[in-house]
């Protein structure tokens, strides 16, 4: 599987409700050891939400504070973005990902620090 097969896929919950599209894939470095890199990254979950302009500008990061005129509306839009833990992924379709349970149970993704 490729990362690009997950990105932009539509996500629906168990009742068929639309959750949004995959904006990004969160990785955590706690996988098996690989070569000189150390622990491999594994998929922790999906960042899912409605189509938002500027979804890849980094305004989900905790250190992104400006410029205010851009940051304020983008932060407000990103409140509708949800985090889907990988263990809730029930089925990977060609363009649609089904998750278990309800979309209402999903939390917002934890903001990551700026790199």
């Amino acid at each position, binding site marked *: 599987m490729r990362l*690009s097969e997950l990105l932009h896929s539509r996500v629906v919950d168990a009742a068929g409700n639309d959750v949004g599209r995959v904006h990004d*894939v*969160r*990785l955590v470095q706690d996988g*098996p050891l690989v*070569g000189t*890199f150390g622990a491999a990254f594994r*998929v922790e979950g999906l960042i899912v939400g409605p189509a938002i302009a500027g979804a890849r500008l980094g305004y989900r990061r905790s250190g992104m504070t400006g410029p205010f005129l851009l940051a304020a509306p983008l932060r407000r839009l990103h409140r509708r973005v949800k985090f889907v833990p990988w263990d809730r992924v029930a089925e990977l379709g060609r363009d649609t990902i089904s998750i278990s349970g309800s979309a209402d149970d999903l939390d917002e993704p934890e903001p990551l620090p700026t790199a």
Partner: protein
Amino acid sequence: MSEHVGWAGRPRRLRRLDAGLSLLDRQILDRDGRLSGKVDDLELTPPEGDGSGPPVVTAILSGPGALARRLRGSVGAWLESVHSRLHPSAEPGPARIPFGVVKEIAATVGLSVRKDDLELSRFEDWTRDHIIGRIPGARHAPE
């Protein structure tokens, strides 16, 4: 954020990143700092055993073979077609960099090996030798 027990029993925060934001389209530099392509996609592999559980990032995919899938639509199909026609292999795939040779992920992605030791430049080399090199005057390019 979950914590693991690290050296001397102290809790250690696990490193997290969003793949699209922090890895895709980043410049790749080899051991000697030479430009070695961009991160165009990632290979995700189910864990060993019964294959259930979260996939693991096993390789960086780079070059037109990887980019074509990301572009999708007619542009992606065209790029994949051109790549497969020009590539020396019968079944060309994207250039694959095992994650085990990745040294660092920052503003760029640093590798612990030389560019020439990877399959990255096979498509470039073939295009240089068979197409660019046959254009009159192409052999006189300055080093």
